[in-house]
């Protein structure tokens, strides 16, 4: 027997043994489980760092506002203030129930912040609300990831582990985006989602605001010779206001004399689309859980007023972070489109209602 023959037979034995191990035992799955779980463990450390970072930011912001015990305020907020969705197998009046729950929660949060930040201005309180919410969301994300990770380990569920590992890159990216977004809210810088309110800001010109609802204002102005009611959340604090109910109120006052309702909002882009692209269509462009959107649709339907939607496209991360130049350029394009709609589709003596939907942080 010469050397090469000996080699060949050893390899052959190893191959047969190897294929037996790979095909008839759990070893490959165990190895995958181990590989994925060590990857997830690393990402969980990253998520925990992000969570801690966000808590530090909130505490820093609150102590700057002379809150006595900022840690206690933060801990009292996280995990609390959840909202249980209304029953949906019996959909009668679900919108009213949902609106009631959303408002109750909003009031509770506002009261909580008011009690703990008695000396802060309205804008500071509104920004603190958002900071607390973001920190709370980051804690929740981390908890959910840990939950599935521990479930996977407990039951040796390597498919669950693999799914979690594959999703985690996106989850961490979103968490990072939320954490970065806190800087914008702390300093009061406009965010991508502010595209709608920014369009409204430019359209209103020098008109004076009229407060129609809590945190919601409207302006009466003239565009292309037509009377235009511009609705937006009241800035420059971080709030989205109640644009749906505001539209409902104004339409109920003006009735059939309104010829057009135009909603302007930021919209999630598809991966292949460019940030700042502007598109228009029909319907209410607003991404709330339901009550605000349906208020606009009902008001428009009641008087048969056509409903136009103009959207400025951006990614999820861009929507919650400092407004980028591309989004800003989108805002410019959207203004032209709104003006064109008013010029072409509203008669000279008609009235148009333009609604800038979104968070108005950093925009009056």
């Amino acid at each position, binding site marked *: 027997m010469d050397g*090469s023959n000996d080699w060949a037979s050893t390899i052959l034995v190893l191959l047969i043994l190897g294929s037996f191990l790979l095909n008839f035992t759990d070893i490959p799955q165990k190895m995958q489980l181990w590989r994925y779980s060590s990857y997830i463990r690393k990402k969980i450390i990253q998520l925990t760092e992000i969570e801690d970072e966000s808590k530090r930011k909130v505490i820093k912001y609150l102590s700057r506002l002379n809150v006595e015990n900022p840690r206690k305020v933060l801990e009292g907020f996280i995990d609390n203030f959840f909202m249980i969705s209304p029953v949906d197998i019996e959909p009668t009046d679900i919108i009213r129930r949902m609106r009631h729950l959303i408002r109750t929660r909003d009031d509770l949060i506002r009261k909580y912040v008011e009690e703990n930040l008695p000396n802060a201005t309205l804008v500071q309180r509104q920004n603190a609300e958002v900071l607390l919410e973001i920190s709370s969301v980051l804690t929740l994300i981390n908890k959910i990831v840990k939950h599935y990770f521990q479930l996977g380990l407990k039951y040796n569920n390597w498919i669950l582990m693999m799914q979690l590992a594959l999703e985690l890159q996106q989850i961490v*990216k979103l968490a990072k985006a939320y954490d970065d977004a806190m800087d914008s809210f702390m300093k009061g810088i406009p965010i991508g989602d502010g595209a709608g309110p920014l369009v409204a800001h430019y359209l209103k010109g020098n008109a004076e605001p009229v407060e129609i609802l809590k945190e919601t204002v409207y302006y009466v102005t003239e565009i292309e010779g037509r009377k235009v009611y511009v609705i937006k959340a009241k800035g*420059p604090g971080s709030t989205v206001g109640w644009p749906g109910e505001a539209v409902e109120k104004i339409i109920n006052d003006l009735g059939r004399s309104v010829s057009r309702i135009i909603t302007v909002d930021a919209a999630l882009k598809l991966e292949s689309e460019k940030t700042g692209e502007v598109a228009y269509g029909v319907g209410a462009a607003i991404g709330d859980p339901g009550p605000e959107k349906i208020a606009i649709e009902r008001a428009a339907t009641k008087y048969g007023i056509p409903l136009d939607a103009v959207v400025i496209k951006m990614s999820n991360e861009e929507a919650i*972070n400092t*407004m*980028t*130049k591309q*989004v800003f350029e989108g805002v410019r394009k959207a203004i032209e489109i709104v003006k064109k709609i008013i010029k072409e589709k509203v008669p000279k003596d008609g009235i148009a209602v333009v609604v800038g939907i979104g968070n108005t942080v950093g925009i009056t």
Partner: protein
Amino acid sequence: MLDPMTIVILAILAFIITYMTVTAMRSRQEPLKKKIIVTQLKCSSCDYSEKREFKEGDYVGKEVGKCPKCSGKLLVEAIYLEEVEGIPELRSAVSIPKSSQPQKNTGKY
């Protein structure tokens, strides 16, 4: 003399090592783009406008002083994130949140 089997095994080993190093390296390099938050100011009466770095307290619509040309109201016209190239006077600016930089999917676990 090396026999063919050793060469095959060595080749496979070399391939695995190269593959692992390449994926590890690819995950490390992230493009670094410098961006800065810009505040654009505009006069409400004439067409004067200027750009400067964002200062805390700025918001769109805020009155920040008088126009140097006609002493009308100088208002904040816009605030946005911009890449530094193109505005040399703002080049001193620092880097920005990481999430606004594109992240590569390395597909490595």
